[in-house]
């Protein structure tokens, strides 16, 4: 697959794209990753940085020590991300906004191109992306931002309903208009 090729059906459904990579980890870098991922659960620098982008639904990293029936020379890093839109846009954001996080995670991987620029990284991802198969999302037409907005709106509408039951008509109308203004960005 070339760096600019569209995703195959197994990688995309609706607005969603799935990206999976399986790349070797240098032996001397393994302890750093183990500690980094462990700390990432409690000092959420990596997840916080990556989820600053409002187009990622779920992302996971897994250090794979072995595969059934295989004797491997390296530990591998399995990466799966599920996000809105084509992965080329996703990688642009990664390469230019959080290059340090990317370098720490994959930078000691074999033949990993240090971003920025983004193009060598895209070529590396195109080489390593696992293609084909089938892909499912329970809400494929809803972008990550739409989901976040919908969750906000759902909570605030519930609060407005409770207010409506105790407010008079004019007070409610004022509260409703405030609700629309405050939630304009989510609608």
């Amino acid at each position, binding site marked *: 697959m070339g760096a600019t090729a569209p995703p195959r*059906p197994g990688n995309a459904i609706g607005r969603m794209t*799935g990206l*999976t990579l*399986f790349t*070797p980890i240098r032996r001397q870098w393994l302890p750093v*990753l*183990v500690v980094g*991922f*462990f700390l990432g659960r409690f000092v959420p620098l*990596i*997840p916080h940085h990556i*989820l600053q982008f*409002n187009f990622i639904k*779920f*992302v*996971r*990293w*897994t*250090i794979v*020590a072995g*595969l*059934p*029936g*295989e004797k*491997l*020379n390296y530990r591998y890093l*399995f990466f*799966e991300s*599920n996000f809105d839109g084509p992965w080329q846009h996703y990688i642009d954001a990664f390469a230019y906004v959080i290059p340090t996080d990317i370098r720490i995670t994959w930078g000691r991987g*074999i*033949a990993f191109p240090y971003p920025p620029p983004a193009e060598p990284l895209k070529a590396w991802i195109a080489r390593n992306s*696992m*293609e*084909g*198969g*089938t*892909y*499912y*999302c*329970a*809400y494929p037409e809803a972008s*990550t931002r739409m*989901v*976040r907005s*919908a*969750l906000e*709106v*759902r909570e605030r*509408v519930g609060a*407005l*309903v409770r207010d*409506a039951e105790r407010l008079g*008509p*004019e007070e*409610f*109308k004022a509260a*409703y208009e405030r609700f629309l203004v405050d*939630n304009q960005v*989510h*609608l």
Partner: protein
Amino acid sequence: MAEWRNRLGGAYALTVFTAILPGHEDALRAHLEALPLGEQSPLARLDQLHLSRIQIFDELVHQHPSQKRETLKSSHLLFTSTFDGDLDPYLDAICERIGPQADAWWGHCVGYPGTADRAAFRRYIRAHKVDTSLFASANQNASVPVVRESLAVRERVVDFAADAQGLDAAALRERFLAAFGDLR
């Protein structure tokens, strides 16, 4: 292995690698790529499932001449899921709702016992799962039903706002409570 590694809020990240029986690769590939998508996918019958990907993994990319070349002895089936709740109820849902479909893909894999023997199926998946090192989500505490309901409510609010323009205060309040009273 520790289940907590696969959890984030109410979500669970499952990653399963299983070796494909020799000679079954093409049939499995054709089967996976012919599976219906979206609401017609068998995976849509799993109410707690946010996302899933099933794919064949048949080579390790040789990264650089300095790397010792690695060759897989067999192809592998990779099954990943992100779902609400615990692993065992999810595996039970697979057995109950998509047993024949799950058997149709994992049946191409070495040692697969089938979903008819639920305990053996659970043991097989647990034996082949790889625990997550780090898992992150934009909406870690929102279950599939909550996300779907919220998306529907958002649409209802947009429609209501358009329809309710120009109503007087009393009618607005009455119409609002009629439209959204179920959300109190």
